[in-house]
């Protein structure tokens, strides 16, 4: 997949890290511990040294459990957060350092869909207003008619009747709202869409509708997706490539088919085995020790060591590097590297 010369990279994340300070200001860093006053500054290390390349036309899924930093990745890429370290390149241009109007052209090319359709539309704006606003903002030269046409066009393309445009969001169901939110992102004709858990707040039957809509948009408009989700069955269906995140680090990155057929990282294996299946054979679920540690003051070495059945002394001291395997997948695990796992 690296030698995919026909499809140029659209987005590159280079050693991207993001941490949030927990103790703000001088006073909060002073702790009283075991009878002694110490200074300590705690931070949540949400994303640690992630490098990723997304090529045109693919749908890269980022999966992981809550607190693994997947939403932070989405927010970093969309510019809602600024990285602590590292760089983000879009189409060859560094964008994480841009501000205000300099970012505007990229805003137009890169849009985001959010998780909660009940919160992602301004409740006090009609659908028409909500959809017109970005069109007007990004195309100041458009006439009233052109704006109206554009809005009608996107509404039709997401399957929302344009005659409902004067209604308010609360008059729509969750699925319809998510369609409208997608329409809003599409009004500026982006080429790259970040979708942060776009279907997890929806019911099963509605999930299928929205997923289909996103697939359609991908084909019709040649969209590239960065798709954040916790749902592996959606990944298998929707993604072309998958990055598995644990405690802010990528543990495995592979083509979807490869990953599902032959997961290598112990965490990926546990994750896949935990998905409840419809079939009646008893699940052979890999039970992990303990629970996900908090991303405050990360342990040295492999972030997964505390729950890993294969962890040894090296895992406790040395952070595993991402190494490309024979089938093209990239895995960060000492046990895999050493061949301790089959």
């Amino acid at each position: 997949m690296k030698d995919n010369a026909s499809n140029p990279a659209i987005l590159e994340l280079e050693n991207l890290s993001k941490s949030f300070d927990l103790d703000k200001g001088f006073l909060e860093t002073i702790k009283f511990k075991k009878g002694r006053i110490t200074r300590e500054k705690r931070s949540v290390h949400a994303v640690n040294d992630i490098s990723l390349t997304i090529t045109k036309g693919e749908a890269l899924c980022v999966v992981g459990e809550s607190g693994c930093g997947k939403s932070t990745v989405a927010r970093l890429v969309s510019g809602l957060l600024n990285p602590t370290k590292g760089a983000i390149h879009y189409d060859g241009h560094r964008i994480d350092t841009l501000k205000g109007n300099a970012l505007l052209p990229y805003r137009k090319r890169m849009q985001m869909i959010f998780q909660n359709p009940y919160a992602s539309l301004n409740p006090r704006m009609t659908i028409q207003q909500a959809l017109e606003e970005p069109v007007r903002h990004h195309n100041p030269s458009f006439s009233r008619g052109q704006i109206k046409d554009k809005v009608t066009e996107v509404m039709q393309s997401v399957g929302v009747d344009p005659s409902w445009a004067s209604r308010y969001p609360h008059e729509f169901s969750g699925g319809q709202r998510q369609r409208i939110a997608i329409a809003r992102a599409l009004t500026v004709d982006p080429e790259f869409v970040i979708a942060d858990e776009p279907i997890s707040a929806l019911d099963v039957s509605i999930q299928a509708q929205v997923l289909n809509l996103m697939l359609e948009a991908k084909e019709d408009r040649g969209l590239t997706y960065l798709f954040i989700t916790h749902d592996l069955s959606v990944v298998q269906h929707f993604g072309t490539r998958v990055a598995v995140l644990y405690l802010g680090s990528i543990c495995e990155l592979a083509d979807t088919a490869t990953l599902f057929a032959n997961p290598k990282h112990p965490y990926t294996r546990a994750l896949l085995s935990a998905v409840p299946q419809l079939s009646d054979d008893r699940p052979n679920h890999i039970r992990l020790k303990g629970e996900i540690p908090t991303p405050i003051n990360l342990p040295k070495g492999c972030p997964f060591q505390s729950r890993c059945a294969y962890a040894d002394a090296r895992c406790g001291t040395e952070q595993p590097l991402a190494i490309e395997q024979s089938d093209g997948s990239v895995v960060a695990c000492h046990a895999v590297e050493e061949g301790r796992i089959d």
Partner: protein
Amino acid sequence: MPLLSVRDLVVKFAMRDETVTALKSISFDVARGDRLGIVGESGAGKSVTGFALLNLISRPGFIDSGEILFDGMNMADMSDAELREVRGNKMAMIFQDPMVTLNPVLTIGQQMVETLQAHRKLSRKEAEQIAVLKLREVYIPAPEERLAQYPHELSGGMRQRIIIAIALLLDPQLIIADEPTTALDVTIQADIMELLLELCTTKKVSLILITHDLGVVSQMTENTLVMYAGRIIEAGRTREIINDPQHPYTQGLINALPQQTLPGERLKQIPGNMPSLSAAPKGCAFNARCEFAQDRCRMEVPNFEQIGPVKVACHEVRRLHHETHKQEDLA
């Protein structure tokens, strides 16, 4: 005699301007030791069913009519004292979100001991001993130390284990679990489900598992009810329903899962939305979304009747049943 027998249960909510019916006369049985799944999308009435079984519908909701026969006694017209006797004791409930289910200002120990003392004459010491025993059963490490801890000191998965331990404290005959893992991560969810399954089988406790996840139902339960817009539309053995769903809605629900389609292909979606309770259409509530709907479906509510191995509420199902079998023969 089944452990639980629900007959024509109707639950209504008195809203400001109108009274909406959340459960439109549902009936089902749970045998001793049985594990029953209740599946449906949000607003189908599955959570309301769970709370109604404990007669714990809070205002503005109320049980309008029907019987909830639990161990021969009707929960629907018990006094408050009699209800207390049953709740937490013979019939326990596990809630959806472990982060808000435990009282933040009481220790785990206090919340366990009070449950025991509400139903048995026990000293605090004795009660704590039982509590530790139950915490051990749900694989809580260092259970003695947990008693003095407050909920916020524990993770979500740990809290849900404690809630399960509280449910088990008095060895109930029936546990109602309302989406017990929806708020948890996939790997934790699998652990909790495994634990629940293990406890129910070894202790022969009946389980009602309310969920939206067909995969969970498939792996956890023997029987399943599918609910739609306040009614049960399909009921039977879980395997039958998963492998050969009869009601068009159940079929649609299963076919809409991404696993049922090849990667990248369009999913088989059900069009439209579930109608809100106040705007339910005439006839079958599913008629607007059903590809097989006939005039009759828009006029009269279908009966809930045995068709083959399952019970289904659909006018068209008998005909559809035949047709699909014919097609299979041809293929």
